[in-house]
């Protein structure tokens, strides 16, 4: 338990760009909501700043801190239906539900996101091929609009706003609370396998073989090595363990480590990245390793190092996640990996996964069937931005998309090509809401009310 209070100056996880809102306003109670129309600048909800780029930032606008809306509302333990305020974090939910035999239906790579953020970014996890996105499990939520209306949105009520808000990047109003379905578990452990692979082909083959059998799959990959094979890596797949004997066993908590200050920029360089990747790849001696592990390290390996984003130093970093369709995906991946190698930018912690066919209700939802790769790049100024622009081009040509939750730089033109329903979505954007991201990709450059 930390005594340290978080500062409420909004930052995104990548700490690029560094922009400031004109004002930060906190919301403490659902019974004491601000009148949004009274703000002179456009508003954007903010909680824990786990979006990587600028989709959670509102330069010159009002950042509405909803992290104090942190109360549970109801929990139907027979049906597995949980209702809570939008600022409750998934970490807090897990702490409550896991000992009672439930799990969150979809879990992103960190548990320190708010429920509101999970909906607004329509987050996905290791079980996308089996369960779709977080939004697929939301039964309803309440949305505060700037005209003072408080609307219940569900697949049956205010359907359009429901679909626009899921993946809607906080632009359709403030989500006050949400109700969603949980998944029953027998114990808090994951029965998992780690399989080494030494080419993209092999990855796809393992992926095809394991998708049916395993609920959760993802791979850590090293794309800087392997030549024509494009990459090597470790494929991790698992299922919730079914053994009753483990049900009451504690998963045991390690004290979280913290990166206490910004490391100098040179710490993460191509040499350290290569050494890290080398160590990780060889951390297992045999091709296949089978074990039963607590859910925390399986789902949230990085959560055990608080503020790991500081490893990138003051300059910050950009995460780049894209998806390319299975068809032609191989060619696009080859092209992208080639360009990254030539650029000489190292990518620490690269994650590869396949998305399944389950469709989200969200209009602006990112996942679609195909191969997705997430890479981190230390922000190195123009050359980093240029590389990512080049990658955008390849993604676009292959009919893929780039993930807004992690983006800080994609062009309006590319965004509009990646998300063909964006104009339909734009109709549901609340006129008093905006974000740095949205102004960039929708070309509504000026900070004026519609």
């Amino acid at each position: 338990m930390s005594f340290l209070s978080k500062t409420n100056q909004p930052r995104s996880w990548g700490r690029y760009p560094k922009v400031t809102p004109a004002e930060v306003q906190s919301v403490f109670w659902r019974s004491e909501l601000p009148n949004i129309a009274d703000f002179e600048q456009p508003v954007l909800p903010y909680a824990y700043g786990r979006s990587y780029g600028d989709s959670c930032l509102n330069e010159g606008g009002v950042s509405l801190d909803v992290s104090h809306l942190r109360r549970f509302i109801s929990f139907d333990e027979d049906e597995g239906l949980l209702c809570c305020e939008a600022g409750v974090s998934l970490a807090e939910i897990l702490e409550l539900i896991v000992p009672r035999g439930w799990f969150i239906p979809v879990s992103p790579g960190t548990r320190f996101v708010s429920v509101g953020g999970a909906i607004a970014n329509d987050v996905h996890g290791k079980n996308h091929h089996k369960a779709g996105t977080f939004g697929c499990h939301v039964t309803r939520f309440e949305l505060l609009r700037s005209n003072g209306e408080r609307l219940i949105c569900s697949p049956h009520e205010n359907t359009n706003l429901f679909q626009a808000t899921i993946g809607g990047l906080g632009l359709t109003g403030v989500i006050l609370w949400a109700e969603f379905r949980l998944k029953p578990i027998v114990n808090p452990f994951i029965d998992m396998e780690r399989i080494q692979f030494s080419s993209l082909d092999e990855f796809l083959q393992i992926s095809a073989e394991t998708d049916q059998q395993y609920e959760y799959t993802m791979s850590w990959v090293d794309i800087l090595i392997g030549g024509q094979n494009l990459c090597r890596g470790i494929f991790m797949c698992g299922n919730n363990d079914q053994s009753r004997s483990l049900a009451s066993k504690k998963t045991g908590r390690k004290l979280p480590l913290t990166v206490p200050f910004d490391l100098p920029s040179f710490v993460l360089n191509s040499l350290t990245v290569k050494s890290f990747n080398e160590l990780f790849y060889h951390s297992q001696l045999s091709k296949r390793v089978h074990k039963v592990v607590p859910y925390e390290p399986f789902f949230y390996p990085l959560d055990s190092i608080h503020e790991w984003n500081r490893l990138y130093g003051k300059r910050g970093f950009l995460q780049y996640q894209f998806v390319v369709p299975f068809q032609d995906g191989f060619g696009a991946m080859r092209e992208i990996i080639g360009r990254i190698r030539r650029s000489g930018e190292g990518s620490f912690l690269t994650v590869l996964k396949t998305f399944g066919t389950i469709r989200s209700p969200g209009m602006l939802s990112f996942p679609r069937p195909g191969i997705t790769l997430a890479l981190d790049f230390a922000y190195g100024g123009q050359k980093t931005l240029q590389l990512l622009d080049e990658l955008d081009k390849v993604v676009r040509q292959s009919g893929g998309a780039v993930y807004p939750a992690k983006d800080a730089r994609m062009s309006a033109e590319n965004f509009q090509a990646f998300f063909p329903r964006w104009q339909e979505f734009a109709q549901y954007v609340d006129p008093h809401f905006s974000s740095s991201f949205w102004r960039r990709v929708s070309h509504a450059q000026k900070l004026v009310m519609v």
Partner: protein
Amino acid sequence: MRILIVGATSAIAHETAKRFAKDGAEFFLVARSPEKLEDTGNDLKVRGAKRIETFLLDVTDFDRHQEMIETAISTLDGLDMVLISHGTLGDQQKCQVSVSETLKEFTTNCTSVISLLTILAGYFEQQKRGCITVVSSVAGDRGRQSNYVYGAAKGALSVFLQGLRNRLSKAGVAVVTVKPGLIDTPMTASVKKGLLAASAQGVGEGIYRAMKNRKEVVYLPWYWRPIMLIVRSIPEPVFKRLSL
């Protein structure tokens, strides 16, 4: 565990209650706003509280103190612990030019608590067990120009609690004085936070432990104890020149 909480919707009280809820406690929650009380009660229920009872009260309504406490005792069939955590961070500038503002601050932060404690002390003394915990403040340790009205109210409260602890120790009843420093809560939303500001969650955890362990005086976070020791030891001729 049957717990009466006055000022139950304050961030500190709620954070403390969350920890007790996890242990399956039964609560009698008292606050002014029905909506906030409901939100708080529902949250504690989901977190494991065995029972939630609520009571609407403006603490400056002294005539209803007796009734509230009797209802709490009869509804929960007795009380094991009390946490009093209501308070307002008044406007020092306004108080300086208004006697009524100053008295209002005293009523909310000091005399209303003393009234509640006077009634509760009798009950606990007779019962010969239990724990009374009151949220005071580091501001009560020494008067400073920036908030001496609030500080004086909390200081009086701290002295009252000292005496009460002395009296009730004979009956085996613990009296815990909690002295938090600056905490990030709705009450301090307008105050600029420095490095020392703490999260309500950490402070709630600290109060929970202090109540469980029947402590006497706890500073939360702990670093306020040495800080206030230094602040208290500065000689008055020097202190009066500082802008604190």
